[in-house]
């Protein structure tokens, strides 16, 4: 017998259908000028989603921190949020709860298409892939509980001279904080459409202007970025019909495939000392950039002034979903959303941490960065949103552009 419902931490259960919820991605657009101060829409989503068939006996009572006298090793399949679990402090906190994690790192979309037997949890990096997995688990009649402990915007990361080249060309504009720029996606897509090279913009680089992503068949950032480029190309309007979506996919495909063979390790390549040569503009999560700056600041006393973020004018949030598949997995999910030490550490790693009720204290990141002597990006909580392609259409576009299996 299926139970599909949202559960709030207090144990109150609201009937709902997880399979039909949510347009896939939420873009927040500023109401007027592209270069207005940008804002976030707080992801008003329940932090816990439950689908049960009774295999997992759940402890959703709030008192989840069960002390065990032995260490449990959890098997997890995970994407970019592996960075959270490989953090030494996070490992120590988990160890204090008797938990170790053993991770197999793949792309978020790959989690949805690969074998999940033997795993205690999976952790795709965004809702589109989260929903793919939840739908699949439901089809297979498997229990799970999904948690949304934090989120982070999808952004373009680059180097200062590249960002300044875009400023001269009129596609980007510096924010007050020295590490951040606003990016006109219309302008950026225009550069891709025209096949502009960086050399034309004054850089000593003959490559086409584009933002490198992992394989779109593989990763959440790549799929999300595809949705953004599609929507911008379509006059900032999501395609409605399948025919329209596929037309659009065919149109943007050459721009996205110009990067050739993709690299799953794009963030690592970007942050490497050789990064400027490897990958001058990449699509990553904001938290990866902020974590880098916090680390560099702590180690050297100054931020890494060469690396900068380009915020698309329409904000793209990405809300990763921790999906517990076993009792142990669920226990870890509860810890992620409830344990103060883990939540504090998530913030220190640049993530925007959601409250247990799914809301966000909007100034948490700017206050935290400020305390550490780093200028915060000019983004906040807003109330205007635009919608990217609905999930089924986005999925079709991803398959069309990437030639993905299935």
């Amino acid at each position: 017998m299926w139970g599909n419902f949202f559960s709030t931490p207090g144990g109150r259960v609201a009937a709902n259908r997880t399979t039909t919820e949510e347009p896939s991605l939420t873009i927040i657009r500023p109401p007027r000028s592209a270069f207005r101060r940008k804002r976030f829409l707080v992801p008003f989503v329940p932090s816990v989603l439950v689908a049960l068939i009774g295999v997992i006996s759940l402890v959703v009572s709030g008192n989840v921190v069960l002390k065990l006298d032995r260490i449990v090793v959890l098997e997890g399949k995970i994407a970019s949020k592996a960075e959270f679990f490989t953090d030494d402090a996070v490992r120590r906190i988990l160890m204090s709860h008797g938990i170790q994690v053993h991770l197999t790192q793949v792309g978020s979309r790959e989690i949805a298409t690969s074998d999940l037997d033997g795993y205690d949890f999976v952790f795709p990096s965004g809702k589109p892939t989260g929903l793919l997995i939840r739908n699949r688990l439901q089809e297979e009649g498997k229990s799970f509980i999904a948690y949304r402990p934090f989120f982070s915007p999808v952004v373009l990361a680059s180097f200062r001279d590249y960002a300044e080249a875009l400023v001269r060309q009129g596609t980007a504009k510096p924010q007050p904080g020295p590490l951040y720029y606003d990016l006109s996606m219309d302008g950026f897509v225009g550069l891709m459409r025209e096949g502009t090279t960086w050399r034309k913009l004054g850089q000593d680089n003959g490559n086409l202007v584009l933002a490198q992503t992992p394989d779109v068949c593989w990763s959440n950032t790549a799929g999300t970025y595809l949705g953004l480029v599609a929507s911008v190309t379509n006059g900032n309007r999501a395609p409605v019909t399948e025919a329209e979506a596929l037309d659009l996919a065919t149109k943007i495909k050459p721009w996205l495939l110009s990067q050739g063979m993709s690299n799953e390790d794009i963030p690592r390549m970007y942050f490497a000392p050789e990064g400027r040569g490897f990958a001058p503009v990449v699509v990553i999560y904001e938290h990866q950039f902020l974590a880098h700056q916090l680390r560099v600041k702590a180690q050297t006393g100054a931020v890494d002034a060469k690396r900068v973020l380009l915020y698309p004018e329409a904000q793209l949030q990405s809300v990763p979903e921790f999906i517990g598949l076993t009792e142990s997995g669920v226990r870890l999910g509860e810890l992620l959303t409830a344990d103060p030490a883990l939540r504090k550490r998530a913030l220190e790693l640049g993530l925007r941490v959601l409250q247990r009720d799914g809301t966000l204290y909007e100034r948490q990141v700017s206050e935290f960065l400020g305390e550490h002597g780093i200028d915060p990006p000019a983004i906040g909580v807003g109330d205007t949103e635009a919608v990217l392609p609905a999930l089924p259409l986005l999925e079709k576009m991803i398959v069309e552009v990437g030639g993905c299996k299935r």
Partner: protein
Amino acid sequence: MQAVKLLAAVALVAAALAGCTSSTAEPTRLTVLASAELADLAPVLADLRRDTGVELALDLGEASTSLVPGQYRHDLAWLSSDRFFQLKAKGAGFAGPLPLATATMLSPLAVGVKAGKAKELREASWADLADRAASGQLRFGLADPHRTASGLDALIGVATAAAGTGRALRPEDVTCDKLRGFLAGRAFTSSSATGLTEEYLRRQDDVDAVVDYESVLLSLNASGELAEPLEVIHPRDGMVISEYPLLLLDPGKRAAYDRVVGWLRAEPAQRSIMERTGRRPIDPAVPRSDRLSGPIGNALYFPDRQEVVDTVLAAYDRAVSGAGHHVVFALDYSTSMAGPRITGLREAFAALNGFDSFFLGETITVVRFAGRVLDERTVTVSGEGDLAALRDFLASDDLADGTAIWSALDHAHRVAGADAVVLMTDGENNAGMSAEEFLNARTGAARTYAIRFGEADPVELDRVSRATGGRVVDATATSLLDAVQEVRGCG
């Protein structure tokens, strides 16, 4: 088509965790199909065995190009690059899961140039290197791209730079053989990565450079066997980097694999690898040593289709086949060419450089014509003097009346051994054969590339060019130089 991607593993359980596990680590021996240059890791592997109990038995060879998806005889594979493995899997539609793979260290492909010659090449692009190679000023070793990852990476770097599109190479970007000039500098080769360095040591007095991974070049310098040290030149464009992924071929060995990967990627091992082998740490946060701190150029967008690799290899085979390349230029010296047009033609020839340079061993025939063939000159390039002679010939000012396009083309096609004919004309045929007569009388298989400018008839040039397998390039739309560059290397 399916996109197949390798899995990356992050191993966390192993010894790294607060010292509370891993006393259980049993001595284990894993067989590893490994790229030949990884022989230099022997001391690191001894440490690995001491710390983790895992012995890696390396089976050294050209692993990056020989590993076939699904056909495994080892527990692990440790490749300089798994790009070719991925392309193979994708090209063959391999449906099974691909092995877990974890990048372990980095080294960009580079050109080791003798210190005495390196100064002027420090900021070089691949085109600059091609320019030197074409004229015999840069003689280098390059491993066989059919067999070695370093050779193939280099070839793709050069081909991508030569295509100059700024995007990942496509098969259609490799239509004209722009690699011949660069490859004219290839003084020696080898079917294996280690064979190449051995050959360089033997021939170091006769040659200028060797193309290989930065780590190999640094190791050569440290070997004490070089009479003159090599300077590591990173071409500004078309950089390719190796990430040395460790692949888990036998999933049953996951636990030992995790131990190995966890140890290798930890900072002590990464530093040890950097100091002992000159490879760069995979961890962005590990500072690079002094010798690894300079800029390394811009990475190319690497092609993602096997078809591209096949096309580039075919172009390579043609270029190094030993058969000389012979191109015939039929140039219009009628009176209408007087002034800027003839000047532009001479300038276009003088400006052929980089990937478009005339190269050692290439034979060039120039046929000047007006109402008849005026004269003809053939040189086989053996040095700068031959190119100067060609320029002198083009400098002739004896423009004449009439335009016998098809008679001149007929003459050009009768030049023995011609691989391609490039016709340049600004007028309409008013003497000699008709186009029809030319086509009926045509001998040989050389293609005609017609460069049209001025008042030349596009329709007839197009018809004749296509009949020979060539095409027309319209210099009225671009510049004469662009047009000459476009057909350079074709045929």
